[in-house]
């Protein structure tokens, strides 16, 4: 089982790396990071802050775009090329296929994030003429961004397991946007009464909460992030993505592929 899972994972990773869109996005993200020091020159007093905000936002935005654009094609491409039938005719279970695809894309995103982080720290080194102990705190924000990738990839895979690529992309982007407002949903739920309160509370927990995973502003201002938040965010991201992947597996398992 492990070998089958890892074979699909590494194959998905290899395929993603070969994808030209992926390279374009990485170059674009690195360019953004590289131009941040120049951008800071037209501002006043926020040279490092602007680099941190731009760099971390670039890592997050481009990672999410990569997750969605590659994620929507993970299942449909295999069906289109008929390669899925070859894979499933071997002793590979459907859930192994979905899980392998998920881990493969996740691996791609982690590797991308690693390169973008290296570029970001290089830019930081140039702008600040050295790195401080405080800069290690930025890694927590990057870790949370990776947790965001866990959820976005899982959700995209879920949509792609039953929908066309275009609709899967629309659904995934919409859910990401709604997820950034999830705190507003919680606030709305706390103000509502009766059935509305239950519905709003349910909706607030149903959509992924990306607000809790976004600490870019805090780390940019050198605010400390509690170990409790790191722990809860990790558990939340793992369990939420597990839920989405399990639903994707159930849907894909019941799907008529003939």
């Amino acid at each position, binding site marked *: 089982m492990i070998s089958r899972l890892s074979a699909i994972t590494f194959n998905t990773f290899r395929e993603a790396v070969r994808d030209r869109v992926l390279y374009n996005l990485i170059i674009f993200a690195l360019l953004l990071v590289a131009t941040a020091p120049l951008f800071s020159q037209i501002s006043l007093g*926020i040279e490092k802050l602007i680099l941190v*905000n731009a760099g971390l936002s670039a890592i997050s935005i481009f990672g999410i775009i990569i997750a969605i654009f590659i994620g929507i094609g993970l299942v449909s491409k295999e069906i289109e090329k008929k390669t899925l039938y070859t894979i499933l005719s071997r002793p590979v279970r459907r859930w192994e296929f979905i899980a392998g695809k998920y881990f493969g894309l996740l691996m791609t995103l982690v590797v991308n994030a690693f390169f973008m982080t290296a570029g970001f720290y290089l830019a930081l080194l140039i702008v600040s003429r050295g790195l401080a102990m405080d800069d290690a705190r930025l890694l927590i924000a990057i870790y949370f961004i990776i947790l965001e990738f866990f959820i976005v990839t899982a959700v995209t895979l879920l949509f792609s397991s039953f929908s066309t690529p275009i609709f899967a992309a629309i659904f995934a982007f919409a859910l*990401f946007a709604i997820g950034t407002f999830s705190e507003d949903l919680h606030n709305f739920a706390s103000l509502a009464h009766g059935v509305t309160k239950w519905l709003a509370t349910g909706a607030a927990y149903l959509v992924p909460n*990306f607000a809790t995973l*976004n600490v*870019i502003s805090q780390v940019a201002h050198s605010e400390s992030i509690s170990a409790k938040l790191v722990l809860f965010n990790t558990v939340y991201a793992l369990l939420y993505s597990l839920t989405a992947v399990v639903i994707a597996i159930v849907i894909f398992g019941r799907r008529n592929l003939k």
Partner: protein
Amino acid sequence: MKTSRKLVPLAVLLLVAAFSGSVIALRGAEAARGSRATIEDVLYLPSPQAVKRLSLGYSGLLADIYWTRAVQYFGQKHLADEMNYNLLYPLLDITTDLDPHLLISYEFGSIFLSQPPPAGAGQPDKAVALLEKGIRANPDEWKLYFSLGFVNYMDRKDYKAAFLAFQRGSQTSHAHPWLKVMAATMAQRANETAMAFEIWKFLDDTTQDKLIKENAEQHMTAIVVDRTIMELERRITIYTQRTGHPPASWFDLGRESLLSGVPLDPTEKPYKLMPGGTVEVADPNSLPFITKGLPPGWRKSTKPRPSESNEQN
């Protein structure tokens, strides 16, 4: 294959021509729109809440962009010596809503807002509102209390409010010890120029920014010039009382042992002794913020805008 090779130079030519043409057309369009149309309209949404929601969680980055936008807006108006800075406060309000901990936008933003036009927006009340907002979000930042005291002292001439701001600031943790001294001194001699000089000097010493440093130094220079002119005019009065007529030149004061040599302003230009016994500076444009020694009816000359100077060249 041969046909495609022949097409390459043609394609390159077409590419260059099309791109150059598009640049010329765009420049024409920009000129037709007016340079300010783009800058004033883009990036400006009136509701801070709407902007925050549209940021999709990347509010820190958007705050930086809005702050840059505010700096650019201020810089352009400042360079053109304009009297109207209507968008400055909304831009700063959005910036600080997007990132309530962006201290620099409160500190420098309040200076931009409070200074009288054309140096600033001439809106000290809005500067105070911005700083109070900053203090609500960052109650332990002594620099914000200093800025509040600064605006109240320099631009609102509300010495009691300035004293209270310095006093509140001195009670924060990590407060600069100078704040306590400033609060105590202000209670005794709030309206002396020495006090104003001290405040500008403190700002000069504690800021790293070139623009703010330059501004503080210009203000300190202006205070020195104002003081010097007052002193020179005092000596001219003494001379007039002694001799019964005003001095014809600085040397007349020298002969009465009231002065040694020709007095020079900080730009190394001699002060002008006017027939009525008053003193004027040689070039008021090079000494912004001075309140004394200005020729009657003098108005600061507007600097040519970069586009205008290019046209002249």
